[in-house]
């Protein structure tokens, strides 16, 4: 039997069994030291090599090159996690193709062996293959041209600055605040001491929890439509807006911002953004139109309590102003 054909069968069967049967087993929800996708891939490659060795099959060089190339393709397409964007995928595959070519051309014998079937197809030693390839190729090229020239329209990509630089001062309800050093007047205690307290139930017992309860109530009257019941930016209206509402649970939002920044953002909303932050499509209201200054601060206090993040502070500035 033709060695290359045998090898093809072994290769396809191995990959088929591995991908459909073993891959799901090796990718459980809880990834372990052994049960992970990379171990799976290693075992698969070793199995392919091992089968070829014990069955003593040595396929044609062109097919060996193809196998190497396909195993790389499989790795970048299915194994590498998290999946890479397609531009990066193309780059990786180009590098892998160069690597495959190095494998093919490692010495003149393998290279000649690799060229052999190609040359024989071109000159017509393999008549059947020549007819197929030479008829198909012009059609493929024509179709590719048609595809490339067919006009398609994708919506324009828009970039925006998520956290713009804040101004030095902001004027809310007739009072001007300098953002530098501005403190939340309701942050009267260390937030971590109240992580196990109950809103509403403990509101009478502790001043701090009273503010958290007030802030939470205001949040759930006004903000959850966009920022979500879980403060993760997935409120019931969130999918409508673009940019999507901020996810406060994410370490990239309130966790890395100062409370004074939040105060400015909440008070001035979308219309108060600079141009690089697309103020025209932000659905964030200028909350000074709907809320009092104290209410804004309480909502900010609640957001930190709920998510467990601490507002960012800088040297010489304390996030806590303990009242005696």
């Amino acid at each position, binding site marked *: 039997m033709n060695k290359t054909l045998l090898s093809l069968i072994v290769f396809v069967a191995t990959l088929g069994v591995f991908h459909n049967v073993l891959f799901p087993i090796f990718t459980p929800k809880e990834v372990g030291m052994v049960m992970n996708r990379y171990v799976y891939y290693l075992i698969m490659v070793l199995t392919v090599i091992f089968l070829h060795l014990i069955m003593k099959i040595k396929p044609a060089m062109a097919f060996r090159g193809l196998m190497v190339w396909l195993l790389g393709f499989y790795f970048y397409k299915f194994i590498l996690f998290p999946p890479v964007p397609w531009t990066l995928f193309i780059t990786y595959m180009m590098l892998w193709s160069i690597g495959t070519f190095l494998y093919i051309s490692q010495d*003149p*014998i393998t290279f000649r062996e690799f060229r052999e079937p190609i040359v024989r197809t*071109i*000159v017509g030693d393999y008549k059947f293959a020549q007819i197929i390839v*030479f008829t198909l*190729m*012009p*059609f493929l*090229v*024509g*179709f*590719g*041209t*048609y595809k490339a*020239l*067919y*006009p398609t*329209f*994708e*919506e*324009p990509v*828009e*970039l925006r600055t998520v956290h713009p630089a804040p101004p030095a001062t902001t004027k809310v309800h007739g009072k001007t605040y300098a953002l530098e050093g501005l403190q939340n007047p309701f942050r009267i205690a260390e937030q971590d001491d109240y992580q*196990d307290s*109950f*809103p*509403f*139930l403990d509101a009478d017992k502790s001043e701090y929890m009273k503010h958290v309860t007030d802030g*939470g*109530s*205001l*949040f*759930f*009257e006004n903000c*959850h*439509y*966009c920022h*979500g*019941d*879980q403060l*993760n930016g*997935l409120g*019931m*209206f969130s*999918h*409508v*807006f*673009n940019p999507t509402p901020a996810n406060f649970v994410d370490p990239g939002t309130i966790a890395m911002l100062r409370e004074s920044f939040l105060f400015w953002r909440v008070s001035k909303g*979308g219309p108060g953004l600079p*141009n690089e932050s*697309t*103020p*025209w*499509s932000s*659905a*964030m*209201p*200028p909350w000074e*139109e709907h809320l009092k200054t104290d209410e804004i601060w309480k909502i900010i206090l609640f957001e930190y309590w*709920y998510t467990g993040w601490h507002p960012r502070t800088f040297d010489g500035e304390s996030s806590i102003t303990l009242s005696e």
Partner: protein
Amino acid sequence: MFRKFNFRKPLGVLLAFAVTLGMSATVYAAGPDTVKKDKLELGKKTYFRRCVWCHGVEGGGDGPSADRLFTRPRNFNQGTFKIRTTDSGELPMEADLIKTVTNGLPGSAMPSWGNVLSNEEIVSVVNFVKTLVQDRSFDDVEDEEVNVQDFGSNPWGTTGPYHLGVPQEAIDQGKEIFIKNKCFECHGGEGRGDGNPTMKDDWGFPIVAADWQQCWNFRGSRRNAYDPFNVVRTVNTGLNGTPMPNFKDQINQEDRWKIAAFVNSLCPRKNIDPLANKPVSDFLISSEFTAGPVAKSIDDPMWTVPDSDTKITGWQDDEAYKEEWGAVNRPRKNYVAMAGQITRGKRNFDPKVDNLWITSRWSEEENAVYYLVEYHLRFLSNDPEWKEMVGIQWPAQLQDLFGAEKPYFIYGDSKKPVHIWRADFLPQNYKPTNAPNPEGYKLDVSVTELNGKGFDDVTVRENPVVEVVDSIYKQGRVKILFRRSLTTENADNLEVQIPPQKFIPVAFMQWSGRDHEKDEHMAISTWFYTILKPQIPNSIYVNAVIMGCVFAGFQGWLVWMTRRTRKMYDDGVVLRDRLPDQPS
């Protein structure tokens, strides 16, 4: 087979099974799942951090958010839970509540907690919620009985996410069952929930029937919107606390799956965003090039595109259309998500419309563009003071916008004004309590054109040029076909001039007159883009053939070259490269 097999009570199950085998649709009958006392501490902690804001301190569904939500958060006190696998009026199984918390209730403010809370926390909070039931008790094993229903299994073996491939015969039979059981009395003639405007829930709050054509909003859809099981369950168990009864005695199990097939067939197949549980908005609204004039009738085949994503369902144009129009592309029906305008002025927390469907064509010959706007609205106004309205918003000075710049999406701003085309309409001879009318209602439409420089600075333009060329309200769906010339004469710089082949920002607004919405109290979308697509030039076909021929020529050259090289080797004119192990 048994969806709710409870391994904790195997004896009870066996007994119940033996008794009920073959005579009833119950697979499990016993007392309810009692409260797990050891879970209550964690449950309370979770409840007061996560749930109290909507469901209230005592679980009365009266948290701070409640009054601005439609539908309101659940009041736990009565032990009335909608989504169950138990018989009507009974308490739910613990597993039912766990599924509700894990998956959330789409179409309401209840999010899915599966990714936020651990399994332990979910079980605990569910047990804590059980203790908030005051009028009944999960611990009352004497008086409370639960009968878990046997739903059977999907007879067609369809799979998610889209559950396509149900035989048409089953769907047609389902439709007969739908008519026989008068489901249309509440759900409307085509299932858009437009049957009965007077319904109340057990607490006296207004409630509407589900819109079957937006199945992603089914509360019990368990983040699997197209699964017919969701419908089977509801038909079988009813929705406690609502006017939806069960139909298990009227409709047998086999027929329940058929009616589910029918209900499901109505729901357009769209790519559902797993985070929002809603279809993904089609952010680019392509206006298709049309040779000759565009049809001015909504019923013309030019406008009858299915709601479903044709890539998902594999829908094909019928032969008659293809013959008439050849390769002309069908415009896509674009899904536009809408939200209440909750940003400026008088805010709208409970919009009645949460999406529009937009189809567009343009004609070079007519120098005009058409936008067909469709949306579901259960009940319309017939009060001339409060007209129904829908509008398309454009940047008024397109030519002055730089890059991605746009006017503010709510009526523009002082520097960048907007131009709005608004259709104001009332249905003729219409009462919300009318029986379903397959003919639909003609609309009295007038067009208002507005200029906005901010939500508090909106002016009405005189002599509108935008026309509504056709419109109808049929079975709970409004359709309005707008037409305008691409450019206008004597434009005053506050009128949008539409260039072909350019991305143009466009946004949509909708006002429900029946709910007294007007001005900034409305439903609104964010900015979308529209583009007037050009005609496909014939040159691309010619170029494809040319490239194919050129490549064929190259192949011929390659063969000739390779053969020549071989011949030169054979004749000894040139030497083959020598391999290292060959003796020289």
